[in-house]
């Protein structure tokens, strides 16, 4: 990709590495409930910022603020060097911040190309003779999907016949084509198997390589690490760190994610009360693996880790 890439709506992407979104001490409270606080990170063009956290950590609140569904209540939210406060998703879209939600907003029985252009159809002719420009839409769909690395035989097949990963890709390609500069992906790999997750990660990388800023929300550090340039971790509504990839190894990331200490304590507790339970053993193994203490090569038997 060169420094700039033109999309359908004529949006020009900034040079890779330049900052698009910056948030500083961002917080959001609903009445007296503090859902999010102290979040600081940034999103650069051509880079992937991963937002990691367990269920209830505040990931979806963070997305909602970025996507314009809710306005933030404290901190700074800067887009293109200008401070913003979104009041509707429209505001976010106007600035090229597009969100791909988990349900993907596709209609399973409709052909791929109709889904791609749904709600923004290309038309020819005027008045009552206004009609769809079908060949053009099929051509663009095919080309845009090819640019993302999906080679479809037939864009006329119902989108429901595609695999989960491919559907995700169509949704991403659609957002990109309609002028997204920043792509917010909400748990794109959550419902997928290992192989399909790999496919999606490839498309995330493809979007990054086209010069988009990507915000990749996930609870799986193994998915985040390979594509991420920056990791922001959330726990219980609070940011517990914002690291560039260079400062962090996968093991450290996994450990922070899993809340290593808490998990270990839990495993000890279970071991005491239920000495020989399956659960305790499985948990211990996981702790061992997570903490990197009992390496896979050394010894895999659960007994040897007791007390580690």
């Amino acid at each position, binding site marked *: 990709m060169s420094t700039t890439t033109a999309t359908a709506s004529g949006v020009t992407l900034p040079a890779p590495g330049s900052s698009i979104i910056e948030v500083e001490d961002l917080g959001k409270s609903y009445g007296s409930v503090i859902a999010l606080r102290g979040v600081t990170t940034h999103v650069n063009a051509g880079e992937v910022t991963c937002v990691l956290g367990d269920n209830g950590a505040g990931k979806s609140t963070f997305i909602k603020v970025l996507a314009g569904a809710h306005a933030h209540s404290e901190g700074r939210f800067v887009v293109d060097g200008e401070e913003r406060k979104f009041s509707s998703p429209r505001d976010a879209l106007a600035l090229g911040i597009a969100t791909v939600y988990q349900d993907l907003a596709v209609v399973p029985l409709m052909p791929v190309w109709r889904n791609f252009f749904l709600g923004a159809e290309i038309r020819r002719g005027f008045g009552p003779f206004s*009609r*769809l420009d079908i060949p053009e839409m099929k051509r663009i769909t095919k080309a845009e999907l090819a640019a993302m690395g999906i080679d479809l035989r037939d864009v006329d097949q119902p989108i429901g016949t595609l695999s989960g990963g491919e559907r995700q890709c169509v949704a991403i390609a659609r957002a990109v084509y309609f002028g997204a500069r920043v792509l917010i992906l909400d748990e794109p790999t959550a419902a997928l198997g290992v192989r399909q997750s790999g496919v999606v990660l490839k498309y995330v990388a493809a979007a990054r390589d086209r010069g988009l800023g990507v915000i990749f929300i996930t609870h799986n550090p193994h998915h985040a690490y390979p594509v991420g340039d920056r990791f922001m971790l959330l726990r219980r509504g609070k940011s517990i760190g914002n690291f560039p990839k260079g400062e962090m190894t996968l093991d450290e990331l996994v450990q922070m994610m899993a809340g290593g200490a808490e998990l270990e304590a839990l495993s000890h507790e279970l071991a005491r009360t239920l000495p020989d339970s399956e659960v305790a053993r499985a948990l211990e193994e996981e702790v061992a693996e997570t903490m990197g203490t009992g390496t896979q090569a050394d010894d895999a038997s659960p007994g040897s880790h007791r007390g580690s």
Partner: protein
Amino acid sequence: MSTTAARPPVAAPEGTDERLGRHARLAAVLRRPAVGALVAAIVIFLYFSFTTTAFALPSGASTWVFTSSSFAIMAVAVALLMIGGEFDLSAGAMTGFTGLITGILMTHYHWNVWLSVVASLVAALAVGFLNGVLVMKTGLPSFIVTLGTFFVLRGVDLAVVKQIIHQVSVVNFQEAPGYDAGAQVFGSYVKIDLGWLPWVHVDSTKYLTVYAATFWAIAVVLVASWVLQRTHAGNWIFAVGGAQQSARQVGVPVFRTKVRLFMTTAAAGWLVGMLNLFKTTTAQSTTGVGQEFVYIICAVVGGCLLTGGYGSAVGAALGALIYGMVGQGIVYAGWDSDWLYAFLGVMLLGAVLVNNWVKTRAEQMR
């Protein structure tokens, strides 16, 4: 597909569309929603043609061509609505409702024909609008809302009409100002000489009478197919029926699309009301009552999914053709005409099973 995407280019064939062979195109044709109905229509036509003498004769065919045509208009409109994910149980009563309004305005108040015709169209559109707004605003199933409208219309048809003209049917409006022009548009017919057909031996049977309803039906099918397949409005109809939430998320105006569909169905009811009025020159309070399910059956037989998001206008028209042919064929064959209902039930169940199978196939096709 994921295999081609994941593997190195060695596995991916060159070019793109070359992978779609002749076989795939044939399969695509067979997957179209209307194909099953077309096959069934041909089989039924051949069956009655060979087992009865009158069915295939031009004079005998005139009856079922007319019935099929007026049912096709309604079935196509109801099919559009069903593709959009909704039902309209007031569609049948609407044909009687509009006929009565026009009839009473012409005979009792001596309005001009065109004025009366337009007045009933406005009334129909208002009811359709109300149906749509009620369904969308309350979030209730359209089955319930339009069931309510159906009973209201049925009650109004009887009570108000009795109040105004002291009887339940309107007759003798040939004297109304401008009646002839109205009859020309809605009630006229042409006779086509089909004496050259090899099985026509008696001169008196060689004319096929084609009523205005048939031309209207053809126009409705063409326009509906055009809208569904070639316009953005059609795209939105499939979308609101297939996945309403998704459609809303990508910016499809769901409310507007559905309200318009209800209004279209009401307008079709008006058209059929006018066609019946000017052909039979009577309007009765009970006209159309009970036919709302026939329209739905025609649409389903034509390949529409009951769950929405899938179907075609041509299919619905073919469903209506099957209904018309069987209804008349049973009479010509000398059976008890009540067998028609048993047949309808079997057709409906069969069609739903076939449709579900086709849908599953369509979603699994790679």
